[in-house]
């Protein structure tokens, strides 16, 4: 992948159907048919969309239609050719296209977001340790429930060990750290799809590192808060409070994803331990919206991340389907 690489992202709902079929199945079948380089279906744990309905795995009756995020990464021609089919499949929700830098594509942006697409049977714990040693500021491992990895469809099934489902590792840090990480990556895992994106780090552990930049005309922005499951704002879980406040302020949507493994800063990598009740996994909350609405959402994010969390913003150049 030496030419331009694009990432297509679809934000939608677990029970969304078109023509009697689940949209999630339709999208993953499409990615399989087109042999997309890397594709992943992520199941969120909490979120809401334009209808302002809360979906969360915390309450049983509100958990049957959880937010989903489908990602597809490939060269520009392949992603562009997916667009008409995606637009046919997705009736509500949000579809965005972002431009990525393939690994080995010259000078890296400062700071950089490094994403590594793998399968669950790859040594992802070793990759996270490699990213930490390279000096990245943090990394989160997100497990997919369906998608494509190493050129094959990998789908999670009920009562199965699901050992080869796709996963992605998202990591943020300095250009130098990202370059070090990319250089040694083939020694840790063969055949991984690694991409680089431009990102702005706004806050880290309560410290303001940059002001929210204004977006180029016609583009949207993606605001992401990375925190641990145990992160708090006034004794309440930070990610729960974030979604609650954003929804109360009538933001047009937010999605929370829970990772399975990760690290932040100098702390040792962490995940769940056997027989422990408190979870120690990374949690990401994302808001994608036009710059005006992102600015109001950031006021809430800024207030709640006064002590903890990593807050980033990215430019989303193309919105194929704004929320219906």
């Amino acid at each position: 992948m030496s030419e331009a690489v694009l990432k297509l992202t679809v934000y939608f709902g677990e029970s969304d159907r078109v023509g009697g079929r689940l949209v999630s199945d339709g999208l993953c079948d499409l990615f399989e048919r087109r042999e997309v380089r890397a594709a992943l279906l992520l199941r969120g744990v909490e979120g809401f969309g334009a209808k302002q309905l809360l979906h969360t795995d915390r309450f049983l009756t509100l958990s049957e239609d959880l937010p989903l995020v489908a990602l597809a990464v490939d060269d520009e021609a392949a992603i562009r050719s997916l667009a008409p089919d995606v637009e046919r499949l997705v009736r509500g929700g949000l579809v965005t296209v972002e431009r990525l830098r393939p690994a080995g594509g010259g000078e890296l942006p400062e700071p950089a977001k490094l994403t590594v697409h793998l399968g669950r049977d790859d040594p992802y714990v070793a990759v996270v340790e490699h990213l930490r040693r390279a000096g990245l500021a943090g990394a989160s491992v997100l497990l997919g429930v369906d998608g494509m990895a190493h050129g094959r469809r990998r789908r999670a099934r009920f009562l199965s060990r699901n050992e080869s489902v796709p996963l992605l590792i998202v990591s943020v840090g300095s250009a130098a750290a990202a370059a070090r990480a990319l250089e040694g990556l083939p020694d840790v895992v063969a055949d991984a799809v690694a991409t680089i994106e431009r990102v702005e780090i706004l806050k880290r552990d309560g410290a303001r590192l940059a002001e929210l930049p204004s977006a180029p005309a016609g583009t949207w922005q993606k605001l992401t808060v990375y925190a641990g499951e145990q992160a708090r704002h006034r004794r309440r879980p930070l990610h729960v409070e974030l979604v609650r406040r954003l929804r109360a302020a009538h933001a047009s949507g937010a999605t929370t994803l829970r990772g399975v493994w990760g690290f932040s800063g100098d702390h040792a990598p962490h995940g769940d331990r056997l027989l422990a009740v408190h979870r120690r996994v990374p949690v990401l909350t994302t808001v994608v919206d036009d710059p005006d609405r992102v600015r109001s959402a950031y006021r809430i994010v800024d207030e709640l991340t006064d002590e903890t969390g990593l807050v980033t913003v990215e430019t989303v150049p193309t919105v194929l389907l704004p929320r219906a």
Partner: protein
Amino acid sequence: MSVVVWLAAGALGGIGALLRFHLDAAVQGRASGELPVGTLAVNVVGSLALGVLTGAGVAGDALLLAGTAVIGSFTTFSTWMLETQRLAEDGDDRIALVNVALPLAAGLAAAAAGWALGAAL
């Protein structure tokens, strides 16, 4: 138990489950806090109703149908436990304990009040 009662228990159980789903979703959808108040509402309403039935001396097939079938599938112990476990996962043991104590106290009070109400009818 006659076949008619057997079939009626199945149908009424289904109605109880649907009623639970709608009340739970209506209450939880309006709430914004961390407590699973939808489940709390369902269990308190169910406790009150079962108290009224037994207090009023409903017995036999009628109690089986109204109590075990309708209220039995309307209320939920498993959801209460599951949601308490999720609260503990998020790390706030205090709120998880509140979710054990509050529905327990409210349920007992509702059952007692229902019984007194039923007995007075």
